[in-house]
């Protein structure tokens, strides 16, 4: 009896443990949420967008590799480092890059990390479309608009750097891990239509709480980005034959064959958006050019200022903009701005300063010819110029103490770009008359205090070609140091020709010939009153002798070079503005690490 009893009890115990069978094997982590919950909630979706922004700050993504390396050499900006073919850094600048480049061939390099950002955006967009009620909820619609714009921006940067890339517009699943390159036209069309949708969801700058700061996307930025991408899509570029991308095609420089991406289709749309931005955006240009750039270095360009439309949202602990591009500091500098050599990796080409009119307030902000030594600012040599827009000495509220990040938030787009793009498109569609109203404000701000000069200049432009040339020149003067030039020259099919012009000018400069024959070759310099910069005299017209005795002289400054010993402003360095024909190398190769992990699906074109 007792035995049967124990038998029943034990069998019952076993059955009880089996009953909770399946439930025990369905497990989810309590520390996570599925997409349905996440994307129907504003805060959680916003945090996911911060995940996309966080990817910009990855060590070797925008922060450490894309922003510091994309965009030079061009006819106005060049690499200030040693001329050394075979050195990973010089190679990137001089269009001599190989697919195993030591700087960019990294497992967490920019290509891989940008796709990580794309995947995160794809998840957000899908989630919002499925669960976000964007038709009825304006807040969720804003987040959708922001994500679409960010994705468009990342894709535009991918195409800028690599040409044709895989088109991923839905989140990765088991089948879509390996994808081949797509024709960039496919991507262009998708992101342009995404931006059209996004513009509808976004508010104008500074009109809602979300867009009070420049680290969140606003309508004017999306409209400007639309125009920027439209200009690139309808312009020239090194393209493989249609269908030839990913086959090792060498490519030719041509326009797109797709009628949807023709100038006649895209320009009117872009102009409409730009006009909306200009008329209703509430934007304006900062009248003091130097004050504008001081704000960026001083980490205070987040609140809406009228001109800045969007910045890469690095925190004060991240970002390497000044670390890379600020006026060079050689070692530990006086006043303790840095503790090691920082900045000055790239700078304006030496002839850039001469392109500006003497009354143009942009000239001495953009191009400076001194660097910081142990005892203060010193002359840097005629061959080494630095971007005066970015300075360590302006970082007063949070001094840069020499770490690996400086906290500067680089500007992605300014209002002057919107104006100049509108001028270019209006000129192309309707001639110079309507374009002058957009060119004039930029010119007037540049000639603050001499506005009549600007008005005269703009009024004198009489033909479409003259206006186009004026815009080409104005974009160089306005955006030197912001690395928009490379994209502009490529889409105008002027990359090599303009760079050849600059090489010619630089050779003239050091020989004091051509347009530089008025130079004596000497310069004089004097520390400024606030001791934060060096005043240089002798490069402008009529500056043939020292203003007074306090100025120090540098004899033969402009002509100092030794071609044999390769010192100073030597010929190989000038001619090394590009080492390989840039028109055959408009894009970077997809680097070996990504290629080998793609299991044969990615193949480099353009002869790499």
């Amino acid at each position, binding site marked *: 009896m007792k035995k049967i009893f124990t038998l029943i009890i034990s069998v019952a115990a076993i059955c009880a443990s089996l009953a909770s069978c399946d439930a025990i094997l369905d497990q989810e982590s309590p520390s996570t949420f599925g997409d349905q919950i996440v994307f129907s909630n504003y805060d959680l979706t916003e945090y996911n967008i911060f995940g996309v922004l966080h990817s910009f700050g990855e060590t070797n993504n925008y922060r450490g590799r894309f922003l510091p390396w994309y965009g030079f050499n061009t006819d106005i900006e060049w690499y200030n480092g040693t001329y050394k073919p075979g050195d990973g850094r010089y190679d990137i600048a001089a269009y001599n890059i190989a697919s*195993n480049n030591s700087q960019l061939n990294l497992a967490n390099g920019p290509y891989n990390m940008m796709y990580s950002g794309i995947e995160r955006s794809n998840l957000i967009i899908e989630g919002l479309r499925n669960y976000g009620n964007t038709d009825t909820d304006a807040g969720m619609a804003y987040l959708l608009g922001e994500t679409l714009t960010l994705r468009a921006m990342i894709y535009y940067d991918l195409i800028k750097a690599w040409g044709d890339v895989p088109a991923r517009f839905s989140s990765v699943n088991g089948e879509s*891990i390996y994808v081949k390159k797509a024709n960039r036209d496919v991507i262009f069309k998708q992101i342009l239509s995404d931006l059209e949708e996004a513009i509808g969801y976004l508010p104008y700058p500074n009109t809602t709480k979300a867009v009070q700061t420049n680290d969140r996307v606003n309508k004017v930025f999306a409209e400007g980005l639309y125009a920027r991408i439209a200009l690139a899509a309808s312009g020239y570029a090194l393209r493989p034959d249609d269908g030839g991308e990913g086959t090792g095609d060498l490519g030719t420089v041509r326009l797109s064959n797709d009628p949807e991406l023709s100038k006649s289709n895209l320009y009117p749309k872009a102009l409409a958006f730009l006009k909306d931005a200009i008329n209703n955006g509430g934007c304006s240009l900062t009248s003091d050019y130097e004050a504008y750039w001081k704000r960026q270095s001083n980490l205070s360009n987040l609140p809406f200022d009228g001109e800045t439309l969007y910045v890469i949202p690095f925190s004060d602990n991240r970002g390497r903009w000044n670390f890379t591009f600020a006026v060079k500091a050689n070692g530990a500098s006086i006043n303790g701005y840095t503790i090691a050599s920082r900045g000055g990796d790239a700078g304006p080409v030496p002839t850039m300063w001469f392109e500006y009119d003497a009354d143009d307030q942009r000239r001495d902000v953009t191009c400076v010819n001194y660097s910081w030594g142990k005892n203060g600012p010193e002359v840097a040599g005629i061959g080494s110029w630095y971007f005066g827009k970015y300075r360590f000495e302006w970082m007063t509220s949070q001094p840069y103490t020499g770490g690996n990040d400086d906290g500067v938030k680089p500007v992605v787009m300014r209002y002057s770009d919107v104006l100049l793009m509108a001028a270019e498109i209006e000129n192309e569609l309707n001639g110079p008359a309507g374009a002058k109203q957009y060119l004039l404000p930029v010119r007037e701000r540049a000639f603050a205090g001499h506005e009549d000069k600007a008005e005269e200049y703009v009024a004198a432009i009489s033909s479409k070609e003259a206006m186009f040339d004026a815009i080409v020149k104005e974009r160089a003067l306005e955006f030197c140091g912001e690395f928009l030039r490379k994209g502009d020259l490529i889409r105008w099919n002027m990359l090599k020709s303009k760079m050849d012009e600059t090489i010619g000018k630089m050779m003239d400069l050091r020989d004091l010939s051509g347009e530089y024959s008025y130079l004596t070759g000497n310069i004089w310099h004097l520390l400024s009153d606030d001791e934060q910069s060096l005043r240089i005299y002798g490069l402008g017209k009529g500056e043939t002798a020292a203003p007074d005795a306090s100025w120090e002289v540098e004899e033969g400054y402009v002509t100092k070079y030794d071609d044999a010993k390769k010192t100073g402003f030597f010929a190989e360095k000038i001619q090394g503005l590009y080492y390989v024909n840039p028109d055959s190398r408009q894009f970077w190769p997809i680097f070996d690490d990504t290629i080998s*992990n793609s299991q044969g699906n990615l193949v480099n074109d353009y002869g790499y």
Partner: protein
Amino acid sequence: MGNAAMTLELIENLKLKIDGGYEDYAQRDDRFYGLTTYYVTNSATYKNTPASQYRDFNRRKYRNTNTLNYDFEKLFNNPDHSLNILLGEEMTISKTNQVTAMIENFPLFFDSQMAWNFLSTGTAVSMANVINPDDNLLSFFGRVNYDYKHRYSFGATLRADGSSKFSKANRWGYFPSAAVSWTISNEDWMEGTRNYIDQLKLRYSFGTAGNNNIPTGQINKEFSGSTSSWISPGTTYWTAGKIMNNPDLKWETTYTHNIGLDFSVFTGRVSGSLEVYQNTTKDLLINFPITGSGYDSQYRNIGSTRNRGIELTLNMPLVSSKNFSLNLSGNIAYNINKVTSLGGLETIYSQSYWASTEIGDDYVVKVGEPLGNMYGYRNDGRYEASDFTYSDGKWVLNEGVADDSAVIGAQYLRPGAIKLKDLNGDGKVTVADREIIGNAAPDFTGGFALSAYFYGFDFSANFNYMIGNDIYNANKIEFTSSRKFYNRNLVNMMNVADRWSSIDWGTGELITDPDALAAANRGTSMWSPFIGNAVFSDWAVEDGSFLRLQSATLGYTFPEALMERISISKLRIYVTGTNLFCLTNYSGYDPEVDTRRATPLTPGVDYSAYPKSRGIVAGINLTFARKAVETGTSEVVKTVSRPSKKSSQLESDYNALKGDYEALKSKLADSRKEYEAENARLRNDLADANEQIKDLKASAKDCDKAVKEAKLSGLLRTIYFAEGSYALSEHARYTIEEIADMMKENKDMTLSFVGSTNTNGSEEYNFKLSENRVNAVTNALKALGIPAERFTDLKWVGKQGMTKSGECRRVVVNFAE
């Protein structure tokens, strides 16, 4: 950690065992970042102030196993067959979570202990409690074991496991196994060989096993939050993680086939086993890199591999007597590995990343090849001055000489640079000129041991060896290449006298005349260490075959007789050396090396490994006799010093040996483990022997029973009478005499009587007649000497239950014990 078990015998031979266990594991990982650390100067939100991390990881595991075991011995009742069935169910639940907090902005004078004790003085910049999904496993299993006459045995198991790491469709894995064995030496026809063959057993088994060793949470796409200090609009961000989910994950299964022959001959002088096996693993679980898709990696079931091999184990106690014994044992294994499938891919390249991305792919896995194939260039020595002409201030490579500037860097291509082979004939050495240059897997592995005993001295030595493995000597590349670092050209093989120099050491200028350059480098053989990238060529692949003396021990045990007088049951002194020598041609520190273990696809890399040390340990085993001290067999280290020694001497002796105490303890733990393993084996043998004894006893019992029954079967006697009479006939007397004889023989037998009549006559009359008949028989027996005490039951029933037949006129005599 705790375990408890309870066994109930429900009915005879049916046992239910209920087993439960609980384990609680906690790990703390607290860190302190001081003022000079990289984190504090660069990454912290509050820079240049101390920071600390608090991390607490907890795991709780619950396990319950229930098994039902039935032995069929009673059912069969036949010692030739033995059958045993087991059914079971098991459930394991494992819960983990991890709390991490990062606290910065401590006062500058805080050190680590203060920071951990006063966490509230800092500012918490991030706080996370990640609760992982439970890792649960539910299993059902059954096993059948059948043995016939201890010659043939068969066993089979089936296991079904369900894991919460996989989704519903792939959750359950079914793993059957079976084994058969034939103990040849127990066959009748092997009777003649019993003198020299002790045991010969042939066995075959087939098994499957499952593996689910991946982290939890891989099947669903789930979003979770982290702290960010990199972006301006906020400090939190959410993502779906950097590892892509995979809802199709399933069990990795290994199928093994194994044929073995166990033998023991010449009364155990030589014993061992020979095994041939094949293991195939399918659906390997690998964390596969997928950078460029948007994620860093994904867990997948991919591919299958196969291992085949032969193993031979031998044990030879050559001599075994009281004062002298010698024992040799050893094993050798030969294994071939082959990748049989990569799930649709033809090759998988991987990188060891020891030089970041400078080298690129250096391992390749191909279908049909083994794992561990190294992939690189073929070294061709160095460029000589005659390979170049010097023109225009540059060295120009001559026609027909392969150009490896794509690999080493264009500005390093000059006389003296390392030269690589151009395998595809295009005149340039590029990534297309790489091939398989080595393999990390060994052909043969094994070891052997020898132990001996001679009049109190004991000696043992253990060797292990490996033959045929290649080693990727990354250290050799690192210390002979300048690359973009300082202080890398450090080894003597790059001594200025032995390698290429391009500098005229007299003037300090580069030599530009090819003849002068060649002359200056006559007698040197190595290339110039000045190179742009690390280059992996077959020069860095070396044969790592080795023979190592792992440990050797020499000891002496003092004679027991001597020791008993001072109440010591055993005193032994010994010296042991570990890693005494390693014979190898490998030029690095140690041929047993595998440093890049992040993925199993890059084995055999020697990069910055710590070499094994050699050790010498001396010690004493001391066991006090039971009567003297109740400490049993605890080992004690004593300084062997005479009382006349000074106390300082004693102290230094003590300190010296104290250091060795820990080493001794672990050594003793090892020998205890060996001892216990031996014990377990002996116990098993004993259990087997006991089984056999039980069987024999059972059959003996049967025997007795059979004998008794045989005896008793013919012992029911009937004595018949004539109609109406109770007189004993001649035949009746004869029967009674027989009965009496039997009673006299079996002293403990007793008799009972039942008298009856046929139905003729009345009830009363027949009743009396039957009584008379019984008395007649009993009196006759008494007359023959059988006492009345031996009559247990006297019964007479008259005609009750009887028939007309004469057969009923009887007395039935029953025997009982």
